[in-house]
């Protein structure tokens, strides 16, 4: 899967390959199977062929051509938005951008599975999920432009702010879900995190809390194979979806480049949450096609072959092939989408360029909800200091 040979996976001493072989599956012992990658839940092959899945077909059984085209549209527009943002960073309009290129299916599939009253806790890369939640994409750019640290009302679309400190939001999601359960509501919560994040203690604690309180939360891990320069082998030696089992709730691995499978599996997991069956871990097996962020240079740590291999599994091409082969979309649809896409790009470009710098006094705003004497004092000093320039200029 990765091109990097990982010394950490080699037993250091004699017993190469022995790891985990001691287990017999007896009830006193939990054992580990290794070496073979597990199958993925897949409903669409990379070639766009619809394959049957006894367990999950039901969750997309009623899907209409319109909805399928909708998913396609979501993915295309998200990718376009993302490309635009990358370009804007190159042009100096953004300080940084974290591209979701390649992860559109994981995000659109899972995002479209959520209900309006569900609540979403993203990382910093969930632009596609934000799109599904109805967050205006230009709002996402504020923090990357450096005009704010989070530019939307989380309660406007039940989409929490981007969280940069890895893993933190999984606990917020769990607490939120505990609150949902307390309220007797039947909505659910979904927490996004990455393969790298799976190592953080906070993520483990969120598994523990959600299991103990049976909180209605779905943990949606986008395993995009990389945490900046580190392949998943630096975080785990078994597939990540298995992590859930030891905490007492189910884990599933889904083809993260198959939007239909992601939709189905997330619907299933959210339904479990709504039904009072507690947490679920979904591992969406996908790939970060681009750099970690615009600051990153992946050529330093991975071969391009890998990316090329994953291109064959592109989530958008796959759905397009299916739409075309099943006659669910015609030329007109694709052409119209193309111009919609252009329009979106233009809108984003213009919106970013028009985004004003924040007022300098914003530094002192919202530090506290109820005020704080020191902030007031410093704001006053700052104002006086600023005024001294005005005076000086006025005097000249």
């Amino acid at each position, binding site marked *: 899967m990765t091109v990097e040979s990982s010394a950490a996976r080699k037993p250091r001493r004699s017993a190469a390959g022995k790891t985990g072989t001691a287990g017999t599956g007896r009830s006193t012992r939990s054992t580990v199977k290794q070496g073979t990658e597990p199958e993925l839940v897949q409903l669409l092959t990379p070639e766009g062929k619809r394959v049957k899945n006894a367990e999950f077909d039901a969750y997309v059984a009623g899907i209409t051509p319109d909805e399928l085209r909708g998913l396609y549209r979501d993915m295309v527009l998200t990718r376009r938005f993302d490309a635009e943002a990358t370009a804007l960073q190159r042009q100096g309009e953004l300080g940084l951008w974290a591209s979701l290129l390649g992860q559109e299916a994981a995000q659109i599939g899972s995002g479209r599975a959520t209900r309006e009253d569900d609540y979403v806790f993203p990382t910093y890369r969930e632009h596609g999920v934000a799109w599904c939640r109805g967050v205006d994409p230009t709002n996402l750019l504020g923090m990357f432009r450096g005009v704010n640290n989070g530019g939307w*009302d989380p309660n406007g679309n039940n989409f929490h702010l981007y969280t940069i400190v890895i893993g933190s939001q999984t606990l917020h999601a769990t607490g939120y879900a505990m*609150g949902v359960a307390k309220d007797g509501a039947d909505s659910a919560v979904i927490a996004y995190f990455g393969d790298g994040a799976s190592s953080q203690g*906070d993520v483990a604690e*969120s598994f523990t*809390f959600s299991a103990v309180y049976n909180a209605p939360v779905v943990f949606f891990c986008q395993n995009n194979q990389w945490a900046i320069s580190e392949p998943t082998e630096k975080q785990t030696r078994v597939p990540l979806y298995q992590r859930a089992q030891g905490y007492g709730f189910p884990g599933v691995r889904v083809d993260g480049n198959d939007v239909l499978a992601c939709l189905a599996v997330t619907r299933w997991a959210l339904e479990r949450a709504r039904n009072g069956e507690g947490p679920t871990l979904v591992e969406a097996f996908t790939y970060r096609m681009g750099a970690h962020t615009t600051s990153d240079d992946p050529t330093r740590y991975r071969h391009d072959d890998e990316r090329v291999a994953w291109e064959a599994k592109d989530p958008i091409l796959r759905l397009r092939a299916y739409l075309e082969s099943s006659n669910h979309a015609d030329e007109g649809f694709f052409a119209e989408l193309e111009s919609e896409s252009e329009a979106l790009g233009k809108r984003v470009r213009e919106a970013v360029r028009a985004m004003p710098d924040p007022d300098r006094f914003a530094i002192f*705003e*919202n530090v*506290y*909800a109820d005020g704080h004497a*020191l902030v007031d004092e410093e704001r006053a000093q700052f104002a006086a200091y600023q005024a001294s320039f005005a005076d000086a200029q006025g005097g000249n």
Partner: protein
Amino acid sequence: MAEKMALAKAINESLRRALETDPKVLVMGEDVGKLGGVFRVTDGLQKDFGEERVIDTPLAESGIVGTAIGLALRGYRPVVEIQFDGFVFPAYDQIVTQLAKMHARSLGKVKMPVVIRIPYGGGIGAVEHHSESPEALFAHVAGLKVVSPSNSSDAYWMMQQAIQSDDPVIYFEPKRRYWDKGEVDPELIPGPLHRASVVREGTDLTLAAYGPMVKLCRQVADAAAEEGKSLEVLDLRSVSPLDFDTIQTSVEKTRRLVVVHEAPVFLGSGAEIAARITERCFYHLEAPVLRVGGYHAPYPPARLEDEYLPGLDRVLDAVDRALAY
């Protein structure tokens, strides 16, 4: 109807009142349920308000604070207990990077009405990690408010106010004063949460303290009075924000200031008080602001804590030194 009660009981009563009056208030932490907390501060609350309101949590402080943040996002007002001062650090990341910043990050869209109760300080002969005073580590962080009551009435009312605040409040409980009794009047109209109070008037020197050290400073003032020295004693009550106005007023009168806290002196809250009051009162001060506090050393084993902690003699010594200028 004012009633005399121990400081721990006053917090208990205050939590009870909050649970009664606001269905969104939750109490959560390790052993807060049947046990009522290791200091019995939550005694009886789970019995009366149920496991949905008074929640025994898994043993994981980051998880406790992290889920409290999520509950606050959902509209709850969690009051979190950290069992001892030395055990807050696993939650430090959630407190500093999330709790403190969420309101600003959201441009004011979300509020974080979370209270974190921390029994703190020494003097009870405990083992390692059970006697520390880490308040400066929270006060330095913007977005948090930090308070510490010194007596039962404040304990009661400051808890009411902390819970009502839409900002995160780190509420440091002076554990060695848990059993001290004082009047609590549930009909009182309390002053502002972050206002210091002059608990004894004097003319020669100001002693400023909070939490467990206020009682000590009163004793110091008594002892000094016998030697004919008139000390003013301030109960700061709040470490973030600090009420510099009240300190300044006092120091402009007495012209001398000694700050006392259990926390290590180096970069303790006394450093900020000294720096800022010197700036504000530069022409009033007859002596440098002196500080009495813990040493730059890990909190020592119990048999040495009396040497480590500020005591009557050490504060008097500082008073004498300040007066000698």
